[in-house]
């Protein structure tokens, strides 16, 4: 049984596998390698995914949802077709949510992989002949990651990684949309969801066009009024200035943590669709005083990297001389009381035990002493974060242990943190005088569902009907036509309505031959309609 690698992206998702020599992407039902991360329901309550669902974002915004990955692990709820959906019900962390989602879909989730590591691994295996140190900048639809990696003698060593989970291409589109609304004195609330989705699609197209052209026009109609707005590259510079600033901090942090000098970096590699934008490339170029490289399709890199990591995990023969060492991306520690001056104590300080960017698996010990006479117990709260005060960090758990009475400082405990390759943290506390040990396992990403819960969820999922594979292409055609209908005006609308009705009636006949014949014509008509929307 082989393991596949899945890149579950904010905007698009991809699947890849290791064919024994190299990673390969797996096309979806309609033959595309990239599947938009969009879900939509049709009037019968059937689920549409990918391109068809994306088309329906404009024609049926109330039945469709995109960018849900950003909300995974939060308590956000989506209401579609009268049903409520929570990106995940067992709330805790995004990674856990992702794992649960995978298990619910009937997949055995072997391991969650750091996105920048995956991207770096794809490049590592791709250009394997050289010894090198490189930095990977991964700017996707919704997340931004940076990692520094070194390659030598078959070792792929991740030095440091940093990122921003709420920064990506979708934010750029959002900014352009806001700018458009302001320029045309439109109120966000006055727009219907259809109009808003249409506008943001238009802004996205404009964003893409500005990657090759100096300027373009955003055309948009809402109700009876039509707007045309010229946008130039320098407008874009201005609109995205603040958003782009946010790219700097994770890059600087990764460099700082890796202790690599800029002159020692052999390459700066770009990953993720948003790195196609010249404005992003220019910024990176300015920061590093060199041109960034991009030799693998930036949309494919992460998926290819996950397939390689899957192969590494199953110890594929072709990769037997490669070992990947990863790191723990954040600092883990406990809260302590600090002595500030003589006999003045202050609580709430964070004592790091495993520092961020330590190679994993790792296990470290710190010895703590009692601070009061006759202290009865020691309570260790476990935190993750970079602040020196625990209140600004994230609490992961708590372990308490009794200590024998004695003078302050006489009793001591050893706190041991063990962080394994799957991101599971084990905390054990040992009282040195009594040898008593307490252990607690903090599964930062483990699925804690019982078998019954999974079975129940699977049963619920069975009720959701997904279109059979052979229908996927037909559904996409209809969804496209519906979207065009929404985007068009007047006679053209009527025309689209009539050809849709005709196509639907042909589909009803279930005569494969005539469906196939008419589908071709339908595609051509749609294509010509697409080319002159206005």
């Amino acid at each position, binding site marked *: 049984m082989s393991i596949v690698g899945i890149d579950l992206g904010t905007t698009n998702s991809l699947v890849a596998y290791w064919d024994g020599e190299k990673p390969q992407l797996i096309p979806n039902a309609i033959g595309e390698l990239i599947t938009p991360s969009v879900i939509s329901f049709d009037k019968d309550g059937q689920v549409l995914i990918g391109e068809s669902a994306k088309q329906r974002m404009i024609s049926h915004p109330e039945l469709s949802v995109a960018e849900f990955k950003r909300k995974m692990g939060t308590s956000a709820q989506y209401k579609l077709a009268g049903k409520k959906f929570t990106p995940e019900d067992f709330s805790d962390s995004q990674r856990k949510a992702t794992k649960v989602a995978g298990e619910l879909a009937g997949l055995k989730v072997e391991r969650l992989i750091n996105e920048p590591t995956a991207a770096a691994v794809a490049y590592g295996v791709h250009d394997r002949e050289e010894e090198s140190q490189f930095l990977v900048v991964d700017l996707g639809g919704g997340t931004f990651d940076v990692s520094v990696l070194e390659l030598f003698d078959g070792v792929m060593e991740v030095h440091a990684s940093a990122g921003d989970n709420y920064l990506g291409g979708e934010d750029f589109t959002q900014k352009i949309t806001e700018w458009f609304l302001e320029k045309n004195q439109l109120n966000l609330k006055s727009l219907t969801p259809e109009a808003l989705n249409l506008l943001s699609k238009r802004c996205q197209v404009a964003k893409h066009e500005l990657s090759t052209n100096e300027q373009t026009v955003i055309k948009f109609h809402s109700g009876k009024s039509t707007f045309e707005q010229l946008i130039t590259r320098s407008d874009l510079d201005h609109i995205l200035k603040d958003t782009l600033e946010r790219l700097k901090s994770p890059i600087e942090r990764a460099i700082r943590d890796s202790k690599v000098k800029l002159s020692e970096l052999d390459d700066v590699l770009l990953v993720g669709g948003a790195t196609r934008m010249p404005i992003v490339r220019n910024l990176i170029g300015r920061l590093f005083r060199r041109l960034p490289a991009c030799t693998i399709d930036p949309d494919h890199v992460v998926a290819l990297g996950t397939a390689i990591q899957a192969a590494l995990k199953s110890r594929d023969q072709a990769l037997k001389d490669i070992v990947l060492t990863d790191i723990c991306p954040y600092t883990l520690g406990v809260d302590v009381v600090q002595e500030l001056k003589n006999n003045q*104590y202050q*609580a709430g300080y964070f004592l790091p035990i495993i520092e961020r960017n330590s190679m994993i698996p790792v296990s470290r010990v710190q010895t703590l002493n009692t601070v009061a006479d006759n202290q009865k117990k020691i309570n260790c709260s476990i935190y993750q974060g970079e602040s020196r005060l625990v209140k600004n960090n994230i609490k992961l758990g708590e372990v308490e242990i009794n200590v024998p009475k004695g003078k302050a400082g006489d009793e001591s405990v050893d706190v041991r943190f063990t962080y394994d390759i799957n991101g599971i943290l084990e905390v054990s506390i040992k009282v040195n005088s009594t040898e008593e040990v307490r252990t607690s396992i903090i599964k930062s990403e483990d699925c804690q569902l019982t078998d019954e819960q999974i079975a129940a969820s699977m049963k619920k999922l069975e009720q959701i009907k997904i279109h059979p594979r052979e229908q996927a292409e037909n559904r996409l055609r209809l969804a496209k036509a519906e979207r065009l209908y929404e985007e068009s005006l007047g006679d053209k609308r009527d025309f689209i309505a009539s050809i849709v009705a005709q196509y639907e009636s042909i589909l009803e006949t279930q005569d494969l031959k005539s469906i196939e014949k008419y589908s071709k014509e339908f595609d051509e008509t749609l294509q010509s309609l697409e080319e002159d929307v206005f």
Partner: protein
Amino acid sequence: MNCWEVLVIEPTNDKKAIKRAYAKKLKVTHPEDDPVAFQELSEAYQSALNIADYLELDESVYDEVEHDVVEPNKVIVNSESKQLIDSIPQAEKIELTKPSGDIEKIELIENLDESFNSNEKLDLDENKVAEISASDTDSFIDYFLARMNSLYRNSDTKNDIELWNDLFTEPMLDDIEIKQRLRYQVFDFFSCVLEEELQSKTKDLFDKNIVYGASEFFDWREDEISLTQYFGHESVDIVMSRAYGNANVSTDNVESKESSSGFSVSWFFWIFIIYVLTKLFASLAK
């Protein structure tokens, strides 16, 4: 077992050789199969690389380190340079890597005063600024620190946010290396001047928005832990509380049952109150 024994090589400063030895052993010490042995290996590998740095210390490297030490102190006006030198990370490095650095250190302190004086005389008109920022990294860093100091020392410009904004949006700061080098030096400056303010009990306080701006710019909050290791809790507290308000200072004191000193203070307090009250009632009764 020392790191060389774990890596099965003779001590060397050839990093490539260290990496080769590590790679060879890693193939038979897979992180998934044997975490304990892997950790021993990875730690040996990292300390070997660190030691290699030390063995490598030649003239050019030393110059570089020396350079870093001079700069942060240029901006420091107070004469307690000795103490400050000890508190900055680069200076620590010198002590670690070159135990005989004492003589150089004294020289450094002397240089310090000179360079500071010369910087103070710097004429900072517009032309000069443009000229300096166009030149290389080192002179930009000198310029930045001097400019920062002169802005702060002049009461007219001390809290002029516009001027501080101009300084922090210098295009040269886009350069990662420049920004990294300034990061700790600027923190040192801010913690020193804020500490001065605190001690002199002055009313003319440094605008919290400027401190906030600097902290956000350098992302000090991401590195609070290492800043604390270098500068101590108090310095970090001073800067963070000015930038982000008291929410960023640990205020929750230890409960009395945990702190014996707190307990005894309150104990004496109550004894005192009872004593006063009894005296009071006694005199009233009279």
